[in-house]
């Protein structure tokens, strides 16, 4: 059988049937805008890094970080962030899972509670925390009974970091668990798994890339927490506070070495988590490069 093409329909106009010209123009325009957006975002992100490297010399780093005790803010920040992160995982993981599975009463209210710290300025959170866990606060008096003080202590630093960072982990974990089809978990229980076994063998590995991303974001937020921290945990001095103080006392050149230290301490985990989760996702999706 011979088929014919109407004269000039494809070759002359270059129009693919079913794909209108206007649609292609919009598609091309969208691609150009997306590329431009990516370029602007990369420049906006990389620009400050370039400036940081440009304005730092080995001598200034050594002068700032060399003296005994200069690295103490780093250890304080690392310790407080690690403990805050541990608390987030312990409390936030079951919460995120139950929210994702719709098994929590008053779920909308709980979600709102998680979102509120994100919506409020950190500085305001710090002020309100004073009322809550400060010496005169409602919880503060109870904390005093167990010899804890909610202002200018290591405990206060952990609380402030927790408030600023926990929503990022819980929301990330919520999305990660919601992406796991509950039918797959049911299949595991039908094949003999107890609920915890199904969680360990199925849910956790499938949600792990999303959990890792949430955890990494929360880590970066905790390490860099400043707004609430500066109000309720000025001491012990963590890295963000140290940067602020150094900036006030010695201007920009004095603050930059600590800024570098914060970036070096806070960034590797998120970057590694991102790379790992991207690789795991593509392996499960079957799109892994050979």
């Amino acid at each position: 059988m011979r088929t014919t093409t109407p004269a000039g329909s494809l070759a002359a106009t270059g129009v693919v049937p079913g794909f209108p010209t206007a649609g292609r123009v919009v598609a091309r325009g969208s691609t150009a805008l997306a590329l431009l957006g990516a370029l602007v975002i990369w420049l906006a992100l990389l620009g400050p890094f370039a400036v940081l490297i440009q304005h730092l010399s080995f001598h200034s780093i050594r002068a700032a970080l060399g003296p005994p005790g200069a690295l103490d803010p780093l250890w304080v920040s690392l310790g407080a962030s690690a403990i805050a992160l541990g608390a987030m995982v312990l409390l936030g993981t079951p919460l995120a899972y139950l929210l994702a599975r719709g098994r929590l009463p008053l779920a909308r209210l709980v979600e709102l509670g998680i979102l509120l710290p994100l919506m409020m300025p950190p500085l305001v959170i710090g002020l309100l925390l004073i009322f809550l866990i400060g010496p005169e606060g409602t919880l503060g008096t109870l904390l005093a009974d167990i010899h804890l003080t909610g202002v200018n202590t290591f405990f206060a630093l952990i609380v402030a970091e927790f408030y600023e960072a926990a929503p990022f982990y819980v929301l990330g974990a919520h999305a990660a668990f919601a992406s796991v089809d509950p039918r797959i978990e049911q299949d595991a229980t039908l094949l003999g798994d107890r609920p915890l076994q199904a969680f360990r063998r199925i849910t956790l590995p499938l949600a792990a890339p999303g959990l890792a991303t949430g955890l990494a974001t929360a880590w970066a937020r905790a390490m860099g927490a400043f707004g609430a921290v500066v109000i309720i945990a000025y001491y012990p001095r963590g890295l963000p506070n140290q940067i602020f103080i150094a900036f006030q006392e010695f201007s920009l050149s004095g603050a930059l070495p600590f800024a570098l230290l914060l970036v070096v301490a806070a960034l590797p985990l998120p970057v590694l988590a991102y790379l790992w989760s991207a690789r795991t996702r593509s392996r499960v999706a079957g799109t892994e490069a050979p």
Partner: protein
Amino acid sequence: MNTAPASLLEVDLEVERRQLTVQVGFGLEAGERLAIFGTSGAGKTTILESIAGLTRLSRGKVRIDGKLVAGKAKGEAALEPRDRQVALVRQPTTLFPHLTVEQNVAYGIRRSPARGRVAELLERLGLTSLARARGAALSGGQRQRVALGRALASPFRVLLLDEPLSAVDVAARQALRLLMIETSVERDAAGILVTHDLTEAQAFGDQLGIIDGGRLLQLGGAHQVVLSPLSRRVAELVGYGGFVPAPSAVDTWFAIHPDRIVPGVAPERGVVLTGTILSTRPYGPRYECTVAERSGEQFTIHLDEPPGAGTECTLTALDPPVVAP
């Protein structure tokens, strides 16, 4: 004292859904297989999920091996799905996407000696070369084979299959069907397959149940139900396309099946009908014709030779069942 052996699976359940109440009752002995046939939305999947423990009963009970696994009466607690000794192949197919084909199939095996069975199963499922592939790399038919293998490898007394071969190539179905039946017999298990493909249902089940609107309309031998539908609705569902008024009683019809009608006059074989051929079209190696019977009823028939449109014809419907509304 009742000494009759208890059924392996006893079902008497009612499940209220938004738009449908599923209410069925039946029992299966060890080694018996039931195919439940019906249209989409008739309640087939609900029955399987209720037995498996994924859907709660509104009323009734389910017993497996004499043990109450689901009940709504006071003091009757439901057994968890993992404790019911059921294997379920679901629709749409869900695999464990982070595990390989081999790991998926072996998932429910708790004892290491049984792991030798996995290699054999993969071979029979035609999946040996894909043993290390993950779910995302598989076609729909391959995914169904993995889900079937995963269910068959697990320890079960009741095998529940929800359209398990719908995406599998027709050529491969026979072998897989045989595997399902053999495994079910080896385990001395009861098997239930639900489908909207009648030939698939008849090939699997020694019993056939016809479900419509959440009710089992008829239950009987796989061939007997098709040859002797008890109502016009069952006849329609199992493929009878024409209903010619029967002279024996008011509101009764001879049900005409397109494959159970032959040209010519053979009163000793059934009921002789006369009519006019309205249209003819190819139907596989045969021809499908629409016939207007003298009473005005229209139905389709399958013939080896194509009669022309407008031809007057005499046909014999082979022992057509007489059905009431």
